[in-house]
C-alpha cells in the first residue's frame, strides 16, 4: 500500500530517541506496558491496605500510618481510578495493541508515529497528576471512582474534596485526550495499513478487538472529557451543571438548578463502554491463544467478529442499568433492562465458541493457554451475575452491595487481567527474545485462579445478605457486623493472592535477561508477528512487505506439511 512508504522512518540512534521519545510502536507498546505494570502494583497495594483496614482497623500501615474512614475512601477512589484507567485501559490496548497490531496486519508502524508518542507521554502525565493527588493538602478525593456530584463537586463535602479532587478530574481529562489520540491512530492504522491480502475478514481476532475497542474509545472518552470539564467548572467557577440548591453542614451554597443525574448519565455513557474497552482485547487474546494452543481453527470466526461488533454497538445503549435506583424514570429502567439482557447474547455466543474451539483440539498447556482458559472461566462466572443486576427488580436488593463488587471485579477486573497475563506469557518471547519460565508460570496461574475466586465469589454471598459497598467499617450496622468473618476470609485470600504476584514479577524480569532464547515462532502460530524475527527489526519485517494468503487460524489443515499454515505461506492453499 502506498500509505506505508510515506510513513517509513529510519531507525533512531541516540538513547533518548530510541527509548524515551521513541516513534517506534514497539517501544511505545513496551512503555505503555511498564506504565500499566507500575500502576497495577500501586492499585493492588491500595486494595491491600483497604482489605487490611476493614478487618483490623487499629493497625498502623506502612506509608499511610493510621487509616481514618476518609483515608479508606481515598484509597478506594484511587484504587478504582488507577485500575480502570491506567491498568485496564492502558495495558491491553496501549500496551499489547500498540506492540502487536501493526505487526499482525503487516504494517511497518502505526499510521501516525508522532501522535502515538504523544498519546503515551500524555497518558504518563495523567498518571503523574493522579499520583500527585495523594500528596496535596487534604489528600486524595473520597468520592469513589464514579465521582457522583454533589459529593465530588463541593469542596466542603469532605476531606480530599479540595485540590485532590481537582487533580483527580484533571488526570482523567488528560487521560481522555491521550486515549482519543490513541483511538484515532488505531482506527486509521487498521483501515489503511493492512498488508496486501489482509482483508478485514482475515484479520486476527486480536486486531478486531483492538479496532472495535478504539472505536468505543473514540466515542466514549470525548463524552467523559466534556463531563469532566463541566465538573471542574462546577467546582471552581461557581457554575451549576450538576449541583442544585444544597445545604452542607448548615451552609447554603451558591448553586442552583443543576442536576446530579446529568453527571450520572454522562459518566455511564462513557462508563459502560469502558467496561468493554477493558474486556474486548482480553476476548481477542483469549481467542488467539485458545485457537493457537488447541491447534484448531477458532470456532465460528465470523460469529466472533459479529459478536464483538454487537457488544460494541449495544454497549452504548445500556448505560442506564447503572442508574435503576438513581431516581431516573422507572419507565426508562425498563428499556435499559431489556437492552442489557440483549448484550448477554453476543457474550454467550463468544463463550460457546471458545468451548467449541477446545472441542476435538490437541491442547498444549503452555502458560498462556492456562490463562486463556482461566479467562473463559472468569468471564462465565462474572457474566452470569449480570442477568441478576440487569433486572431492576432484583437490583433493588443488589445495587451498591458487594454483589456488584464481586460481579465487576470478576468480569472487567480479573478476567481482563487474565487476558493481560495470557498476552504477556504469549507475546513475551516476541517482545524480549526469550521464553518465560513455565514452572513459575503454572504456579502463578493456579494460585491466582484459586485466589481470585476465593476473593470475589464470597462477595456475591455478602451482597445477597445486604452488605453495602464503600463502608470502611462494618461494625456500625448490626446485620453487617455478622458478616465480618466472611470479610476476614476475603482479606486473607487477598493477602495470599497479592503476594503470589511476586512470582510473576520475578519470572518477568528474570526471563527478560536470563530466560532461554526464543525462536521466531515458539508457539507454532500462524499470524504475521511470528513470521518475522525475534525481536522484530525496527520496520517489523526487515524491508519486506508481507503478503497474506490465508485466514488467521489455519491449524490442523488436512494435507498441509505441518499442523499449521502461516498467513503469509503462498505454497499451501486452504479454503480460508
Amino acid at each position: 500500500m502506498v500509505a506505508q512508504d510515506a510513513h517509513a522512518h529510519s531507525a533512531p540512534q541516540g538513547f533518548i530517541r530510541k527509548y524515551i521519545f521513541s516513534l517506534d510502536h514497539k517501544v511505545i507498546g513496551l512503555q505503555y506496558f511498564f506504565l500499566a505494570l507500575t500502576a497495577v502494583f500501586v492499585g493492588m497495594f491500595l486494595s491491600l491496605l483497604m482489605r487490611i483496614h476493614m478487618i483490623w482497623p487499629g493497625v498502623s500501615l506502612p506509608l499511610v500510618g493510621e487509616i481514618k474512614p476518609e483515608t479508606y475512601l481515598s484509597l478506594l477512589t484511587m484504587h478504582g481510578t488507577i485500575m480502570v484507567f491506567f491498568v485496564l485501559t492502558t495495558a491491553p490496548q496501549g500496551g499489547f495493541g500498540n506492540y502487536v497490531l501493526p505487526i499482525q496486519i503487516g504494517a511497518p508502524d502505526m499510521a501516525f508515529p508522532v501522535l502515538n508518542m504523544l498519546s503515551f507521554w500524555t497518558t504518563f502525565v495523567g498518571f503523574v497528576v493522579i499520583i500527585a493527588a495523594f500528596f496535596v493538602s487534604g489528600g486524595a478525593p473520597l468520592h469513589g471512582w464514579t465521582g457522583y456530584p454533589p459529593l465530588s463537586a463541593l469542596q466542603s463535602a469532605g476531606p480530599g474534596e479540595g485540590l485532590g479532587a481537582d487533580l483527580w478530574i484533571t488526570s482523567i481529562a488528560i487521560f481522555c485526550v491521550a486515549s482519543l489520540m490513541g483511538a484515532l491512530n488505531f482506527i486509521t492504522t487498521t483501515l489503511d495499513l493492512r498488508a496486501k491480502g489482509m482483508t478485514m475478514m482475515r484479520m486476527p481476532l486480536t486486531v478486531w478487538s483492538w479496532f472495535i475497542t478504539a472505536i468505543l474509545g473514540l466515542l466514549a472518552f470525548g463524552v467523559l472529557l466534556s463531563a469532566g470539564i463541566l465538573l471542574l467548572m462546577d467546582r471552581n467557577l461557581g457554575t451549576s451543571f450538576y449541583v442544585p440548591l444544597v445545604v452542607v453542614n448548615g451552609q447554603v451554597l451558591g448553586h442552583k438548578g443543576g442536576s446530579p443525574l446529568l453527571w450520572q448519565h454522562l459518566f455511564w455513557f462513557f462508563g459502560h463502554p469502558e467496561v468493554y474497552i477493558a474486556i474486548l482485547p482480553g476476548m481477542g487474546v483469549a481467542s488467539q491463544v485458545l485457537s493457537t494452543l488447541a491447534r484448531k481453527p477458532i470456532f465460528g470466526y465470523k460469529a466472533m467478529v459479529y459478536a464483538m461488533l454487537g457488544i460494541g454497538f449495544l454497549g452504548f445503549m445500556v448505560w442506564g442499568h447503572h442508574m435503576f435506583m438513581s431516581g431516573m424514570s422507572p419507565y426508562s429502567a425498563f428499556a435499559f433492562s431489556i437492552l442489557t439482557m440483549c448484550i448477554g447474547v453476543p457474550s454467550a455466543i463468544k463463550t460457546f465458541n471458545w468451548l467449541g474451539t477446545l472441542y476435538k483440539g490437541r491442547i498444549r498447556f503452555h502458560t498462556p493457554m492456562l490463562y486463556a482458559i482461566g479467562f473463559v472461566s472468569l468471564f462465565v462466572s462474572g457474566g452470569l451475575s449480570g442477568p441478576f443486576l440487569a433486572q431492576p427488580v432484583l437490583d433493588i436488593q443488589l445495587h451498591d452491595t458487594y454483589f456488584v463488587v464481586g460481579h465487576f471485579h470478576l468480569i472487567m477486573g480479573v478476567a481482563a487481567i487474565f487476558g493481560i497475563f495470557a498476552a504477556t506469557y504469549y507475546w513475551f518471547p516476541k517482545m524480549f527474545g526469550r521464553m518465560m519460565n513455565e514452572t513459575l508460570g503454572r504456579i502463578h496461574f493456579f494460585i491466582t485462579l484459586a485466589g481470585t475466586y476465593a476473593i470475589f465469589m464470597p462477595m456475591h454471598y455478602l451482597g445477597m445478605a445486604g452488605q453495602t459497598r464503600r463502608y470502611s467499617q462494618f461494625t456500625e450496622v448490626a446485620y453487617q457486623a455478622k458478616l465480618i468473618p466472611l470479610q476476614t476470609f476475603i482479606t486473607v485470600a487477598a493477602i495470599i493472592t497479592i503476594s503470589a504476584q511476586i512470582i510473576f514479577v520475578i519470572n518477568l524480569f528474570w526471563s527478560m535477561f536470563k530466560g532461554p532464547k526464543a525462536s521466531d515462532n515458539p508457539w507454532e502460530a500462524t499470524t504475521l508477528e511470528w513470521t518475522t524475527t525475534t525481536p522484530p527489526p525496527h520496520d517489523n519485517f526487515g524491508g519486506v512487505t508481507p503478503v497474506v494468503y490465508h485466514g488467521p487460524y489455519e491449524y490442523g489443515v488436512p494435507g498441509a506439511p505441518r499442523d499449521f499454515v502461516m498467513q503469509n505461506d503462498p505454497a499451501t492453499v486452504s479454503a480460508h
Partner: protein
Amino acid sequence: MGLALLVVIWLITLVSTYFFIAKTWWLPVGAAASAGFIDRQFDLTYLLMGIVFLAAQLGLGYLAWKYRERASAPPADYSHGNTKLELVWTVLTAALFIGLNLMGSTVWAHERFDPAEGGAVQVEVTGMQFAWYFRYPGADGKYGATSPKLMDPSAGGEAALGLSGSDPAAKDDIVTGTMYVPVNREIDLSLRAVDVIHSFFVPNLRFKQDAVPGLNIHLHLRPTAIGDYEIACAELCGLGHYKMHGMVHVVSQEDFDKWLAAREAEKQ
C-alpha cells in the same frame, strides 16, 4: 496439566455452588409485600444462571482434560464452526434472557409505575451527612414548608430540616430520627436529600432508593411483619457513609397511633 486444570475448575465450581445451595449466606428475611415477588424472581434467575454456570464450568474443565495433547490423541479436527449450532445457541440465549427480563418487569411495574393507594400513611425521608430524618405530616395531612436558610444539622430534629415556624401546616409536623410505620398499611414515602446523594436501603423490606438533592422521589411499600429493621445508606456520601444507619420499627396500627399521639403531645 489437563487433569490439574479439570480438578481446580471443578472444585471452584462445586464449592461456590455449595454455598449458594446451602444458603449459608442469603437474602435477609423479607418483611414487605414485594418480598414474595422479588424473592421468587431471584430464585428463578438463580436457578437458571446456576444451571448455565455448572454446565459451562464443568464443560470447560472436561474439555480441557479430554482434548489435552497426547501421543495417542487423534489429530485436531479441522473445523471452522457450525452455523446451525451457533443459531440454536443464539436463539436459546436470547429467549432465556429476554423471557426472564419480561417476567421480572411486571414486578418492577407494580413497584414503581403505580402511585401509592389512597389513604396511605405518609412519611418523608430526608438524608443528610450523616443521618436520616423522618417527617410525618400530622393531622392536616400536609407537610409544612422548610427553608434551606433555617437548616441547622447540629441542632437535629425539626431544626435540621429547617421547618418553618410561620407556616401553619408545619405546626403539627412530627420529625424523628427513627421511623415508625404500621404493619400491613401502604406507606407513601417521599425521599429527599439536602447535601449529597444518599440511598435509603432497608434489606428486609426489599427497598432501596437514592435520595437526591433537588428531587422529591415518591415511592410506596407495604410492610407485612412487625419487627425492627435496619437502614443502611447505600450511596457513598462522605466520610461518615459507613455509620449512616437507622431503624424502621414496623408496629401494629394501635401502637403506631399511640406513638404518633405521644409525639404530638411532646410537641405541644
